């Protein structure tokens, strides 16, 4: 299987406490150097809590943020200058909040035409034909084209956002929490539409979410992000059923589930570490029941564990009996 996306040593740090001259007071590492492959035609889920760097990662992948180190290879080609206009033809982005991602003062037609005109230089007739095609694919009526974004419900606006991403004819879509602003009954409509579009256009998805159940339902593989690093990657079927990294296990236990009694699944006082004074060693050791002295001193790296699993932990939970 070929790789749609290959990230090598990609990282991003932000300066804090900027001074007029001289270096900033400190650097916050939003994304630690990470390697990740996304295979053509798959849906890779990325889960993590707020502040784990998943949005920063997504913004780097489409060129909205220049990476601090590392490189991004899209469909075999390295793109190292952060220019969304060049990225845009290959990789597109669907935003979390459909209402703030559509300019309130433009009609849907004006919004839809921009990628067709700027990225593909289509003439008026070709643009109209293409918009018609895309709108049919996302089940939107063409009469919507001359309306303004505020006239649409969240679900419809999100379809418009997806339609715009499709208009660029990119084969990879970054879906950044595409359904978390929607009601559950509408959420399923949009998720199913995304699944249909993937088959119809042969797309590759990077699906970012904090909702484990949603990610599990749509993904082939899932990467768990904690404090800017990938702590575990595995198949969607396996990773929450048999978590190996203690953090993945914590996530899986925390997801509210009917019938399971409430119990604080960890020492209730701990939360994410402070990014300004990151812990030495494994970022999770303060919350981990299995932490040893090694975890407090040395940072574990992501290593393959079997064919379809990789994790960054010195004391992983016992997996299923290996075959």
């Amino acid at each position, binding site marked *: 299987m070929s790789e749609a996306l290959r990230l090598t040593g990609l990282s991003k740090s932000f300066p804090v406490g900027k001074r007029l001259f001289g270096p900033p007071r400190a650097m916050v590492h939003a994304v630690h150097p990470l390697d990740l492959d996304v295979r053509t035609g798959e849906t890779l889920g990325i889960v993590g809590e*707020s502040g784990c760097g998943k949005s920063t990662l997504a913004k780097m992948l489409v060129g909205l943020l220049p990476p601090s180190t590392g490189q991004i290879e899209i469909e075999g080609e390295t793109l190292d200058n952060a220019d969304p206009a060049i990225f845009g033809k290959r990789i597109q982005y669907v935003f979390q909040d459909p209402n703030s*991602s559509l300019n309130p*003062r433009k009609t849907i037609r004006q919004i839809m035409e921009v990628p067709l005109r700027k990225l593909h230089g289509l003439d008026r007739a070709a643009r109209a034909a293409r918009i018609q095609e895309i709108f049919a694919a996302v089940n939107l009526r063409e009469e919507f084209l001359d309306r303004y974004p505020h006239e649409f419900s969240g679900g419809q606006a999100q379809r418009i956002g997806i339609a715009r991403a499709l208009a660029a004819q990119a084969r990879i879509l970054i879906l950044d929490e595409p359904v978390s602003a929607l009601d559950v*009954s509408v959420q399923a409509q949009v998720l199913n539409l995304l699944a249909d579009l993937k088959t119809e256009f042969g797309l590759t998805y990077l699906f970012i979410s*904090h909702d*484990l159940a949603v990610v599990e339902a749509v993904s082939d593989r899932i990467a768990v992000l904690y404090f800017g690093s990938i702590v575990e990657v595995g198949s969607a079927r396996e990773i929450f059923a048999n978590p190996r990294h203690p953090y993945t296990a914590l996530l899986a236990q925390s997801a509210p589930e009917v019938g399971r009694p409430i119990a604080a699944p960890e020492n209730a006082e701990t939360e994410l570490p402070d990014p300004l004074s990151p812990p030495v060693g494994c970022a999770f050791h303060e919350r981990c029941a299995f932490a040893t002295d090694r975890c407090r001193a040395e940072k574990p790296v992501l290593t393959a564990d079997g064919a379809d699993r990789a994790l960054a932990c010195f004391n992983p939970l016992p997996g299923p009996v290996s075959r």
Partner: protein
Amino acid sequence: MMAFFRLLARNRLALAGLVVIGIVVVLALITPLLPLADPDVTDTPNRFQPMFSAGALLGTDHLGRDLLSRLMWGTRLSLAMGFAAAVIAAVLGSAIGIIAGFYGGRTDNVIMRGVDMLMAFPYILLALAIVAALGPGLMNALIAVAAVNVPFFARNIRGITVGIAHKEFVDAARLAGMRNREIILAEVLPNVLPVIVIAMSTTVGWMILETAGLSFLGLGSQPPQADLGSMLGEARSALITNPHTSIVPGAMILVIVMGINLLGDGVRDALDPRLKSGALSRPMPATTVDRDGPAPAARTDSLLDIADLRTEFRVRNRVYKAVGGVDLHVEKGECLGIIGESGSGKSVTALSVMGLVASPPGVITGGAVHFDGQDLVGARYEVLRSLRGRRVAYIFQDPQATLHPLYKAGDQLIEAIRTHEDVSREAAHRRAISLLKSVRIPNAESRMESYPYEMSGGMRQRVGIAMALANDPDVIIADEPTTALDVTVQAQILSVLSDLRRERGLAIIFITHDFGVVGQLCDRVAVMYAGRIVEEGPTAAVLRSPQHPYTSRLIDCVPTLGGGQRRLAAIPGLPPVVDRLPHGCAFADRCDKAQAECRAGSIALAPTEPARKVRCLFPEVAKERSA
């Protein structure tokens, strides 16, 4: 555009301003066509003619020139100068503001510090300096007034642009291949334009005054050309002997500036979206009650009994029936879940209990809320106030919005305690620390001194819960308290709530859209759809064998962990809008079992099994669900 004029016309003063300015502008425009004397011809023998003298309606000035003619030509010039200065200042200032705000960083810093330096000078001094450098004259006065007002626009527009430049649609435009220049013109500018117009409408009057001021000092229009300022300046020496020569231009300046300012205020009110949505109308301390019938009696003798509660929002000529007849009760120590999608009326129900729905536009139009036997709907404000927080407390979704950002967490807790109880500050302080400990905040003593922004979302929500517990309430109404939190933090908060309830015998009404949370925390659950309860019963039974098709299909929509990759069941269509509710069952349009009877008339919430009720003519047959 018509809507804009209607909004403007609602403001009587603005309308008056518009009329006055309209007349002045029309007169100024047609001045060259009017049969007026030449404004610049001197006629010294006839100097200082009084008003209403033959041939000179408003009299003549110190050189015998016709004052009416000079006034008309002067007004024409002053208006043109004012508008021109406003346009120049708006264009330059907005361009600077947009560039600074859009590019940010160092560009922003350099530009805005330059603007700050301009603002550091008193404006008249700066204008004088510019005229002094360029020499007196109309054009130079215009340049000076425009330059003095550039910083005002630059600062205003920069602030707005910063907000817009970080919106997602700007990122989306970048990804669609637009360059910065195109984004500024096509994406940012249309969103900033209303603000520019507002800023202009409120400053034009000011700029007319400033140009008149410069002319008054002899730095603007040069003799014999008349503008309002120079007319005043020339009349100054005859102020006592012939006051009419000063009064005529002075009155005109007054009329113009008053008119423009009234109109400007009206334009701002009509264009500013925050004012349009009613941000200026201060909500009353308790929701207005306008019951159309007698208060229904309590149906149960529970701690809190809501009977046939109806709450609507009256916005102009529309009525949104947010809550359309809700019956609920909660016992001591019980946890009742209310589940529903956005717009289902679950939050409005909760807020109506203590009269916390913002009025206007909210109105409670019917029903009763009996707490401990007393009806709270229509109770006096003092009664509600003494119960709020003391017996019935709320926890809201966003603790960042409910905690005051400028006070320490500890002080806010102490205030909450001392509002209802006459205890010393020290005693309240000790109690606050024990409250923080009870919600498991580490280092409670030092956290008392923290400001809300220094805490994480989970910690803030704990403080929110501690505050709700401050006066040992009987009922806590929690409105989506964990929705904004991460799953691991959510699990912690839920466990805190669950323990507190057991330890203190609290009754909790827990509002959420998450079946998993309800399933873990609540004893009973009520499902709301379009302002009504469609199903109610013990949580386990409802989740295992839902009887209303909506409940059943909603549960199917929600993925649960452990199901693997799969296609989800979706409910087609959208929930109805509550100002146009369909006749009969509100879910009928989305329901695959709907019959003609479903749309015929309202359907009662009927008991099916012990402790279970459903509002459906064709309830789901009790099938055991696998999940």
